[in-house]
């Protein structure tokens, strides 16, 4: 009986966390796959959205849906501004990396300064608060809703990129920007569109997931690490492998969490990422070709 509950917990939480990790990482992988730049300020957009929701919904008492939409809009603007600034003035990949990491730190200090002394800030969620039972395991509706949204966004994004005409444009710009530009495609414009989409995705993730935790100036680190680890395990830029990679990490974490006495989920994720970087740097997706 206890064994069954243990397995159910690993299965349910493994699946839920996997879907949520996929939601967090999708934008990061997509941007790299298309533009080949690594945006280390990605996690900071999660923090920007969370603080904006707090400001609008808690301090200014706006409707949560309106606050969430505006916060996501601000995340998109900040994401686009960071991308445009660094791709214009620091296009060299290493300077881009350095600059975007420094931007994440700048945003951390900015929120730390403006919300100083305020610890444990919480924001309202879109999901109901009463827990549900799934396979005998108690689950927060927050995680359930975000997992469903993750599935929907994964499907939508896949359909957009694989089936829609603009998806073909994105794939062309990702695969060979020079040849694509000969056919009238503006790669820089395509990159910007992808950055806007990815910033909106991480904004959605923040709106859905942050209500389960607290808003702090260092909260950007966790989503960034998840996005980074999933991207490495799936294969940098291979957005189709986001979900399998996210599941590999989440199920490994849950197995260690429930089968050992240690709470070392983050360390497990790091170990999986390091193993992939050292043994299979091309990730689960394999191949070294450019493009999605």
């Amino acid at each position, binding site marked *: 009986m206890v064994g069954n509950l243990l397995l159910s917990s690993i299965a349910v939480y493994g699946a839920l966390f996997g879907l949520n990790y996929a939601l967090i990482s999708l934008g990061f992988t997509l941007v790299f796959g298309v533009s080949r730049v*690594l945006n*280390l300020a990605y996690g900071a957009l999660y923090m920007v959205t969370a603080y904006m929701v707090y400001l609008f919904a808690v301090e200014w008492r706006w409707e949560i849906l309106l606050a969430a939409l505006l916060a996501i809009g601000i995340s998109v603007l900040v994401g686009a501004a960071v991308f445009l*600034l*660094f791709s214009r*003035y*620091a296009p*060299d*990949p*290493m*300077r881009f*990396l*350095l*600059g975007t*990491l*420094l*931007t994440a*730190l*700048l945003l951390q*200090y*900015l929120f*730390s*300064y403006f919300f*100083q002394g305020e610890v444990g800030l919480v924001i309202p969620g879109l999901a109901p608060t009463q827990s549900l039972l799934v396979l005998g395991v108690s689950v927060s509706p927050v995680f359930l809703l975000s997992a469903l949204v993750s599935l929907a966004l994964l499907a939508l994004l896949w359909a957009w990129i694989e089936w829609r005409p603009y998806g073909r444009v994105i794939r062309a710009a990702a695969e060979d920007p020079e040849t694509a530009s000969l056919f009238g495609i503006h790669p820089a414009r395509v990159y910007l569109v992808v950055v806007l989409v990815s910033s909106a995705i991480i904004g959605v993730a923040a709106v859905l997931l942050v209500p389960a935790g607290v808003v702090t100036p260092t909260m950007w*680190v966790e989503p960034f*690490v998840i996005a*980074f680890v999933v991207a*490495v395990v799936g294969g*940098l830029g291979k957005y189709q492998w986001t979900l399998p990679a996210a599941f590999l990490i989440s199920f490994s974490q849950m197995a260690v969490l429930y089968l050992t006495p*240690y*709470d*070392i989920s*983050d*360390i497990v994720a*790091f170990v999986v*990422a*390091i193993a992939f*970087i*050292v043994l299979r*740097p091309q990730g689960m997706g394999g191949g070294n070709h450019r493009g999605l």
Partner: protein
Amino acid sequence: MASDPLPSPSLRRLVRAAGHTLRSRLYLATLAVMAAFALLADLLGSPYFTLSLILASLYIALAVAWDFSSGLTGYINFGLPFFFGLGAFSTGYLVYHGLHSIPALLALDFGVGLVGGGLFALPTLRLRGPFFTFLSLLLPLIGTDIVLAFWTTFGLPTIGYYGLPFLAPTLEDSLLLLSGANALFLTGFYLLRESRFGLVLRGIRDDEEVLESQGISSFPYKVAAFTLSNGVVGFAGGAYALTTTFAGVDAFGFLFLLFPILIAILGGTGEILGAALAGYAVILLSQYLYLTMGSLTLLLFAGAAILLVLFLPRGLLGLLRKEAA
């Protein structure tokens, strides 16, 4: 007839070249500035000023080490806080296990940094692309997580080691010790930069593939540079723990990445000496601003670092060299 102390012609050439390098005006000026600050602290006797200079010395050690490896090769190492924390925690561990000799502790911290840096560099520097930088960014987070998950296993009384001995009997002595160590590191790194070794490191930054096509394997040079650099970072971490008498998870903080990078870029990426001079300017200014502006200081410095990356990536010394050219 007296025997020649350097019988080998190649060794003689090497010593002559080193002598020539060390007669450079900028190198001598940098050492003079370091000595002047140590003397000034002694004359003023202000604990805040001396502590600020101690902090500057620690950041200079980090910045020079970062500049030597990342600045020269172009491989960005975000793992500085990890090796810094490793040095700090090694000090705590060793003190709690009965070692109280300061020179032995600092030497062991240097050794821990060397071994840790080597173990990290060996598998990761084989890969091209962003993987090294990526993994290095994970290191400080792993360090914090390991300490938080296993602090009882390490026998820590709390999440950190407290009550560690002081680096030296007085603050002025601590500053003198750190300035001496920095002079040593600076000399070593500067000599290496100006040698064939440094030339290869700069070649890696300019075009690694072209370098390798000349029959030079870049891998051992990269590993040696990052190992050596992290040895100095480990030393600085140990010295920090002995200055604050505490080794805690704060040693893995991104602050120990932000300031060294800012200092190294301001001084001129890959210039080594510029980092030492910029270190005093940045840290003394930040300490002064902190008194008046509080936490806004960090915001200003993070903004300044971004502006440098965007518009002055080779720093002030790089700009001066360009103007002179």
